[in-house]
């Protein structure tokens, strides 16, 4: 009994310690500069490996999500005789919610887990301590460009997700279900506002990008330097960052829309 209480206490203390380490990692790696700091080229290389290589999954997923939204929406709206609102429904759903959230979730699975495994393996093979010995700060060299690459890539991916989704919705609604395409596009253009819907969606996506990459690099940097530890850290990244994205989505929406 006593040992159970003791282990519960240790778990609590360790969790708070780990949050503290994550905060310190963020504070030390968010800015550029210092000995052996990563340059602009490293940022480009990281955008390539987390952003460009996630493109295919984002585009395919976006197209299918847009198509299924249009199909479901059509079947519901047709009962109320307001099929002309379909374009508005598809575009607002994608821009405000599904674009940022789905892009961040797919990013966590596709790029976040890879980041954790990469940094974890660097730690296990003592590349990070080798850098320290050479006087290079591994946080500035390894973590900083990855963190910023995530912040830059996720909004772009979310935007592409929404764009492809809206065109996928148009494909189903106009070409397959025979909706008049003027109704789809012009009602959308009348209702969607650039700042309220597009820009706020992008702000959300940037925050998600930051949080997902932060969790991924922290899990890699903090993992036990064994193959089991790397595997565990990779799983943790996907689980924690998915939950963080969904939870933050509600908070950000409440803050932006107000009224809660």
């Amino acid at each position, binding site marked *: 009994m006593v040992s159970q209480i003791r282990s519960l206490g240790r778990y609590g203390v360790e969790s708070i310690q780990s949050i503290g380490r994550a905060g310190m990692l963020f504070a030390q790696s968010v800015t550029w500069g210092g000995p052996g700091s990563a340059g602009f080229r490293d940022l*480009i290389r990281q955008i390539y490996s987390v952003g*460009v290589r996630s*493109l295919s999954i984002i585009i395919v997923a976006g197209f299918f999500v847009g198509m299924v939204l249009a199909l479901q929406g059509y079947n519901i709206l047709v009962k109320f005789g*307001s099929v002309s609102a379909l374009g508005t429904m598809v*575009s607002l759903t994608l*821009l405000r919610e599904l674009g940022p959230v789905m892009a961040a979730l797919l990013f966590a699975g596709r790029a976040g887990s890879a980041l954790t495994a990469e940094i974890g393996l660097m730690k296990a093979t003592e590349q990070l301590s080798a850098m320290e010995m050479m006087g290079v700060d591994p946080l500035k060299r390894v973590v900083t460009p990855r963190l910023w690459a995530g912040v830059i890539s996720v909004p772009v991916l979310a935007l592409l997700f929404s*764009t492809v989704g809206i065109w996928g919705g148009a494909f189903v609604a106009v070409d397959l279900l025979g909706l008049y395409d003027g109704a789809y*596009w012009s009602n*959308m253009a009348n209702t969607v506002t650039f700042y309220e819907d*597009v820009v706020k969606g992008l702000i959300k996506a940037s925050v998600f990008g930051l949080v997902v990459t932060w969790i991924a690099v922290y899990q890699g940097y903090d993992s036990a330097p064994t193959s089991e530890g790397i595997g565990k850290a990779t799983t943790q990244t996907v689980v924690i960052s998915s939950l963080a994205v969904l939870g933050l989505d509600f908070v950000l929406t409440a803050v932006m829309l107000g009224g809660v």
Partner: protein
Amino acid sequence: MQMRNVELMVGGFMVMGIIALVLMAFRVSGLSMEAGGETYTLKARFENLGGLTERAKVSMSGVTVGKVSRIYLDKEWYMAVVEMEIDSNAMATLSTDTSAAILTAGLLGEKYIGLTVGAEADYLADGDWIHETQSAIVLEELIGRFFLDKAEG
């Protein structure tokens, strides 16, 4: 992978993002480039706006000729004042007895202002008031009136 190819791919990625943003701005959210075009302001008082909002369309015979730029309450008249921006080429056809009505697009659609040209020979100028106005039809009032008529009859 060669660094040049990486740079090319990342450049392409960012360009795709910018193209998507431009599509979002102009195709999806309907921002228009004609903001710099010459517009004239007209004002009208309405008893009830019934859900008309800023940026709503102003149309003539179904053609959009402008938009609602500002809505405020006139404290002397206890009426809503709507300021509209009208495109300069549509402005030349509006006579002084033009009337404005708040209409609904479809059964449950959004509210817009419909202008109907009158018969006077003089034309409206920038900043003029439209005196002939018709308020939005509020369903609750209609239903209330209908029940009142039933009760009396």
